[in-house]
C-alpha cells in the first residue's frame, strides 16, 4: 500500500465521474430527441489488492453505459404506428372526398332538381324559347357539377398514386439506412454509448418503416436486426437491404408495388400489403374512390340515357312538317362510358335550343308539334326509380351517397382518434422508461460534480502526505 495508490484511486474516480458527467450531459442535450433512450453509467469497484493479507479497495471504474429501453414497448409502438399511419390516410382523404361530395358546396341534388323543374316549366309553355334557354342553362350547370365532382375525385386518386411512389422511395431510404446502422452496431461494441445511439436511431427507423408497411422483425445474436414484410419477403438482413419499386398496372393505369430480389427480378406484392400508410393509399385509391366515381357515373348514366330515350321520341320546334317520324335528337351527348367525366348537352341542342322537344305528337294537317308530353315525361323522371336496378330515385340515390361519405368519414375520424389515443398511451409508457427527465439529470449532475470535486480533493491529500514525508527527510 503506497501513497501513490491514493493518487491512482483519485485518477480513476476523476475519470469515472467525468465520464458520468458526460453521459448526463448527453442525456440533457437529447431531452427532445425523438426516439432517444436515456443512458446511465454503471459504476463498478476496481478489483481490490491484498496488502498484508487484507484486501484493500482500488477505487472505481465505469463498467458500461446502458440505455433504458423496453423492447416490448418499442415493438408495440411500431405495430401501433402501422395502424395509426393507415388510419391517418383514411381520415385525411375521406375528409377531402367528403368536401368534394358535400352538397353544401356542390349543390348536386339541387342542380338536378333545377334541371327537371325546367322541364316542368316547359310543360306549362311548350312553345317558349325562353324556357328552352332555361333548360339548356340548367342542363349545362348540372353536367358541369357532375364533371367537377368526377374531376375532384379523380385528382385525389392521382394524388394517392403519386404519393404511393414517394412512400416506396421513402421505404427504400429507410431500409438502406437500417442496413447501414446494423453494420455499425455490429462493428461497434455493444456497450459503448455510440452503439446505443445507433440502436436508438434504428429503433426510430423501424417504427417509421412499420408506419408505412406491415413488417416482422427480430434481432440476431450480434444485435443486427432482420426485417421481413409480413408475408416473408426480406427487406433488411444484416448489412444488406432489398428495394421495393413501383410498377405500372396496365389495367388501371396506376402503380403496383413490387419487391426486387438480389438479381433484380421484381415480384408484385401489392395484394400482400395489409397495413401501414402504403396499404391505406392503395385501399383508398383502388377501393373507396373508385366506388364513389362509379356511383357518380351511374347517376350520370341514368340521367343521360333516360332523358335521351324520352327526348328522342319527341318533335322539336325545328320539326320538318313533311315527316311524321319523331326527330330522334339526343338531348345529352350520347356516350358509352366515363359518363360523369364526359356528361354534356348534345351538340344539336347546344347549337340550337329549338332542337329541344316538348311534344310527343304532331298536328296531322299542319305537321307542327302539339302538346307537352315529352316535357312531362322527362320532368317525371325525378320521381321514378331509375337507379340501382329500378329501386331508387335520383334523390334517394344522391342522399345515400351523402350518407355513406358522411358515415365513412366519421368512422375514419373516430378510428384515427382511437388510434391516436392508443399511440399516446404507448408513447407515455415508452417515455416512462426511456425518456429524459431534466430534474433527474440535474440531480445526477450535482451528484457527479460533488464526486468529481471530492476526488480532486484526494490529490491534495496525497500531495500533502508526500510533503509531510519529504519535510521529515
Amino acid at each position, binding site marked *: 500500500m503506497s501513497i501513490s495508490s491514493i493518487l491512482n484511486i483519485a485518477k480513476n474516480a476523476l475519470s469515472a465521474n467525468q465520464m458520468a458527467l458526460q453521459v448526463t450531459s448527453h442525456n440533457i442535450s437529447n*431531452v*427532445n430527441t425523438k426516439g432517444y433512450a436515456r443512458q446511465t453509467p454503471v459504476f463498478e469497484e476496481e478489483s481490490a489488492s491484498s496488502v498484508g493479507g487484507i484486501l484493500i479497495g482500488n477505487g472505481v471504474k465505469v463498467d458500461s453505459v446502458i440505455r433504458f429501453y423496453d423492447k416490448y414497448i418499442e415493438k408495440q409502438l411500431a405495430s401501433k404506428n402501422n395502424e395509426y399511419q393507415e388510419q391517418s390516410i383514411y381520415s385525411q382523404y*375521406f*375528409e377531402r372526398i*367528403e*368536401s368534394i*361530395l*358535400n*352538397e*353544401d358546396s356542390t349543390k348536386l*341534388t*339541387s342542380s*338536378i*332538381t*333545377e334541371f*327537371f*323543374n325546367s322541364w*316542368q*316549366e316547359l*310543360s*306549362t*309553355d*311548350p*312553345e*317558349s324559347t325562353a324556357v328552352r334557354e332555361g333548360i339548356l342553362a340548367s342542363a349545362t350547370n348540372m353536367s358541369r357539377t357532375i364533371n367537377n365532382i368526377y374531376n375532384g375525385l379523380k385528382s385525389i386518386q392521382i394524388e394517392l398514386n403519386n404519393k404511393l411512389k414517394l412512400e416506396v422511395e421513402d421505404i427504400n431510404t429507410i431500409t438502406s439506412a437500417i442496413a447501414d446502422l446494423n453494420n455499425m452496431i455490429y462493428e461497434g461494441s455493444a456497450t459503448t454509448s455510440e452503439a446505443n445511439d445507433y440502436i436508438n436511431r434504428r429503433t426510430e427507423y423501424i417504427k417509421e418503416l412499420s408506419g408505412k408497411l406491415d413488417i416482422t422483425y427480430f434481432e440476431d445474436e450480434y444485435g443486427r436486426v432482420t426485417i421481413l414484410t409480413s408475408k416473408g419477403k426480406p427487406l433488411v438482413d444484416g448489412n444488406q437491404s432489398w428495394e421495393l419499386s413501383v410498377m405500372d398496372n396496365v389495367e388501371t393505369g396506376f402503380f403496383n408495388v413490387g419487391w426486387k430480389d438480389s438479381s433484380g427480378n421484381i415480384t408484385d406484392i401489392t395484394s400482400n400489403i395489409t397495413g401501414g400508410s402504403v396499404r391505406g393509399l392503395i385501399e383508398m385509391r383502388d377501393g373507396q374512390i373508385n366506388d364513389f366515381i362509379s356511383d357518380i357515373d351511374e347517376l350520370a348514366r341514368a340521367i343521360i340515357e333516360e332523358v335521351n330515350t324520352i327526348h328522342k321520341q319527341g318533335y322539336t320546334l325545328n320539326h320538318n312538317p313533311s315527316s311524321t317520324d319523331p326527330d330522334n335528337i339526343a338531348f345529352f351527348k350520347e356516350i358509352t362510358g366515363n359518363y360523369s367525366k364526359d356528361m354534356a348537352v348534345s351538340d344539336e341542342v347546344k347549337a340550337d335550343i329549338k332542337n329541344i322537344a316538348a311534344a310527343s305528337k304532331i*298536328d296531322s294537317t*299542319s305537321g*307542327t308539334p*302539339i*302538346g*307537352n308530353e315529352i316535357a*312531362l315525361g322527362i*320532368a*317525371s323522371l*325525378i*320521381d321514378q326509380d331509375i337507379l340501382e336496378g329500378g329501386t331508387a330515385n335520383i*334523390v*334517394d340515390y*344522391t*342522399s345515400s351517397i*351523402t*350518407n*355513406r*361519405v*358522411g*358515415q365513412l*368519414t*366519421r368512422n375514419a375520424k373516430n378510428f384515427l382518434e382511437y388510434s391516436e389515443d392508443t399511440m*399516446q398511451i404507448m*408513447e407515455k409508457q415508452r*417515455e*416512462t*422508461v426511456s*425518456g*429524459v*427527465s*431534466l*430534474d433527474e439529470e*440535474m440531480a445526477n449532475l*450535482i451528484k457527479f460534480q460533488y464526486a468529481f470535486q471530492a476526488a480532486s480533493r484526494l490529490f491534495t491529500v496525497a500531495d500533502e502526505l508526500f510533503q509531510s514525508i519529504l519535510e521529515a527527510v
Partner: protein
Amino acid sequence: MRVTDSLKYAVLNKNLARIKQNIDATQNKIASGKRIVTPSDDPVASASGIGLESEKNMNSQYIRNLEKLKTLGGFYDTSITGIHDLLTKAKEIAITQASSTMDATTRKASAEQVKGIIEQLVTIGNTKIGNSYIFGGEKSSVVPFTLDSDYNVTFNGSEDVSSVYIDKNTKEDASISGHRVFISDTNIFEALKKLKDSLEANDQAKIQASLDDLESSLNKTQANIAHVGTYVAKVESYIEYKDVRNLDIEESLSKMMDIDIARAVTDFNALSNAYEAMLYSMAKVQNLSVLNYMR
C-alpha cells in the same frame, strides 16, 4: 410512473390541439349558423336534409305551375263571363225580334248586331297569353277560330287539352278547350248564325225557333262558369297546401340543420375556459424545475 420533460410537453401539446380543434369546429358552426357543416357531422340528418331540400325545390316548381293555372283561370273566367253576356244580349234580340210588331228593317238591323256578337265571340275564342291561344286545347299555337264571310266559324284547335304536374304523380288540365266552351253539345256559333240568318230572312217562326238553341247555349255557358270557378278554387287550395308543406319542410330543415346559438356560445365559452386553464397550468408546470433552485 416517471414523468419526463418531453412527455409533459407532449401531453400539453396534444390537449391544446384537441381543445383548439373543438374551438375551431364550434366557431365554424356559430359562423355558418349550422349544426351540420359536413355530412360526417350527422350523416343521417344530412341525407334526409337533401331529400327535404329537393322536395322543397320541387314544391316551389309545383307552386309556379299552379300560379300559372290560377292566372289562366282568371282569363277563362273573364272570357266565359263575356260569352255569357254576349249570349244574353243575343237572346234579348231574339225575343224582341220574334215579336210580330217587328218588321224587316228592324230585323235587318238586329242581324247586323248579331254579326257583331259573333265577331266578338271569335275574338274571345282567340284570346292569347304569351305564346298560346287559351282555347286551342293541345294545339295552342294555332289560331283556334276562323270566321268566313258567311259567318261560319270553324274550330281549328284540339278537343284534347295538355296537362301539367301540380304534385308528384298528379296532373291537372292546363287549359279548357274551345271545343268544350263553344262547340260541344250546342254549337254557340251555329245557334247565332241560325239567328242571324232567320233575322236576315225576316222569318218570325225561325227566329222563335232559334231561341231554344240560344237558351241551351246560355245554360252550357253557365255550367262552364261554374266549372272555371271550381277549377280556380281547386288550384288555390293546392297552392295553399303546397305553401304550408314548404313551411313545414323549412321548419324541419331548420330544426335538423340549424344551430342552437345559445348552446353553441356556451360551448364556446366552456372551451375557451378550458384552453386558458391549460395555458395557465402550462406556465405553472414550466416553473416546476430544479433549475430554478440552482445557481
